[in-house]
């Protein structure tokens, strides 16, 4: 499964990758971007199975990226999980409204992340 991890913090990207690799390193392969614009370009270039995206990022933030993607028919069914520090309920509602399939609040819990990926992949 090819996963695109978008976060402006390299360490955060590493943490997310590691928590998945710990579980099953053979299953996942990763692409990385540190802002929304780069993420968009990668998506245009390569096939991605799952998008893990942060909210607060320079250039194009995660929320706007998701909104942009969902406008385009080819990304309508792309599974997206937002991983962000934003914990307020109104933020989650906003993100789900924008089109994310699930939402995870940092600091990331390995088990929760795995469970959410499983759920999102099965729904879509």
């Amino acid at each position, binding site marked *: 499964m090819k996963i695109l991890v978008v976060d402006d913090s390299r360490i955060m990207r590493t943490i997310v990758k590691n928590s998945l690799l710990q579980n099953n390193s053979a299953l996942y392969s990763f692409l990385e971007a540190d802002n929304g614009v780069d993420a968009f370009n990668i998506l245009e270039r390569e096939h991605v199975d799952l998008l893990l995206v942060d909210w607060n990022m320079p250039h194009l933030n995660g929320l706007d990226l998701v909104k942009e993607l969902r406008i385009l028919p080819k990304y309508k069914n792309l599974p997206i999980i937002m991983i962000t520090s934003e914990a307020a*309920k109104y933020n*989650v*509602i906003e993100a789900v409204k924008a089109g994310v*399939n699930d*939402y995870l609040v940092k600091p990331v819990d390995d088990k929760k992340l795995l469970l959410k990926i499983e759920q999102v992949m099965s729904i*879509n």
Partner: protein
Amino acid sequence: MFKKFLFSILYNGLTEDSGLKDKSRSAVLNSISLISVVILLSYAVIDIIAKIYLIAFITATTAILILFAIILVGITKRISIGTSTVSYIAFIFFLLILATSREERAGYFWIMLFPLVSIFFLGITHGTILTVLFGLISYFLIFIYKGPADVIFIHGMGVRVMGAYIGVSLFTIAFEIIRMMAFDQLEKTTNDLVARRKQTAMIFNNVKQGIFLLDEDLVLSEERSFYFNELFGKTRINQPFLELLKDKLPNRDFIATKDYLELFFNKTVNPALLSSINPIEKVLITFDSKKAEEKQVWLEFAFERILSKNGSIEILGLFRDITERVTLEEQLIKEENESIKNMENLFQIIHVNPELMEEFLKDTSDEINSINELLKVETQDTRSLVNNIFTIIHGIKGNAMLLGLSNLSERLKTFEDYLKDLKSSTATWRELLKLTVNLAEIKHDLDQINTLIEKIISFQKLTGENVKSKKYIFEQNLKKSIDKLCKEYNKDVILDLNDYNIDLVPDKYKKLFKDSISQFIRNSIAHGIEDKNERIIKNKKPDGTIKISLEKKDDKLYFSFYDDGRGLSLEKIKKIAIEKKGYSKAQVENFTTADAAKLIFSPGFSTSDKVDNLSGQGIGMNVIKTHVDKVGGKLNLRSSSGSFCEFKILLHA
């Protein structure tokens, strides 16, 4: 109408809670009775026409008796009266017919009815006994009495009649037993059903839970629980759910709810995520009622996505009234806060000298009482009343802050602010009431602290715990003595200790500092600082200032005592020099401030006009000078006539 009338006759004598058995019995009883009354009365008429008066009389009497019994049943609501009466009447009547009937012994047929009537009406036991008795009497009438003499008795016929009677009786008993069992079973089932229906109704009607369904347009379906309607009132058909909520909760929650509910129709959103972000999981709903008071209810909402048969998504909504729980929680939090406050007080108290604390509490409680006394005095001038209270509260607040009682000083501060507002205009009784309530609250706080003090005083250790309060003790003592002196000399003085760090004073200099400061203060108030009027004339601030400071630089201590009074009066000093020290006029002619200072620090010198018990008690400037000299320090005096006087002491730390 007719049906109703018929039913009322049929169920004559039944009560609301009558069971099925009674119902069937009553129906049969009433119908049989009525039919028999009609038939019997017709027979009676026929008999009268036939001039058989005895029979006619018996028949008519029976009919009337039955009618009477039925009416009695209707009045007393006791079917048993009817059933027994009818049974016994039948008993007598049938036997009479058996005994008297002539034509082909028609009575033989009648008696077959009796087991049916008696067993059905009176039940197995009672009915069977009566049936047996009836059988025995019938046997006597058939075989021994044999009826009227002119009617031919056929023995074989009698045997057959008795046989048939026994057969009918046994069959009726068996039938009744089966019938009763069936009824029991039926009744049990019915009762269960009734109980269950009652229960369901209770749940829907009494349990404060709302259940409702929303379609894709967030429109309410008609199925919803009773409580939903009770709370939200009557709704129109195709009522949009959000419309009901609007204006009942904060707009922000309303918008969030709208956004939230719309998310349910996106099948790709994880349901677990949805349930975790419910914005009205716990919400205060305000119902605008026409009455003066609006009703507020805490509701707990839950929503679930359900798929209907045709594949469309619906939302199942549930809500519960949790007002009671929320109120309870709030109560708990309040109590918790109270105990946190207690802990805080405790924590601060154990860092403070308990004697000091006690003194503070005593003083404060006295002052609170004095406020209360002020309040007791009837006055129109609330401004000056509020002003007086303000001054007292301000003082208490200062002390509370010094002692680190942050809760109390916070409260005092709020109170002070409130008083500040009140000072500007004449207070209404409502405002004064609030003032008193505030006072009560402060008293409550003080009482709590007092209780705590009593609790901890037993294990309070004094060692080294009173560093924090040193300055306070010092300041309090100083203030007290200044107040005393001011009263005596009718002066007004503000004490400034901002730059005085008492912790810099080494133990070896404690006595020197204590003595010097009290001497300087006496000196200032008695001689230096002018009274209010004089100061105003001289264009000075009405209140005099005394500023004491202490600084440490390298290994030196710099002490200063400053007042903004009239300074050294050279004229006065010259005069005293001549009068008390034997100086000549020429000697004092060119006196400088330095010379004057020297003189002041010499033994037996006082500029005071009168020897009073306050300034006169001073140990004298010369003692200070001697003490400073002894420890190798320097004592200096700076003064400007009419504007200030400053004593400076330089010491090795």
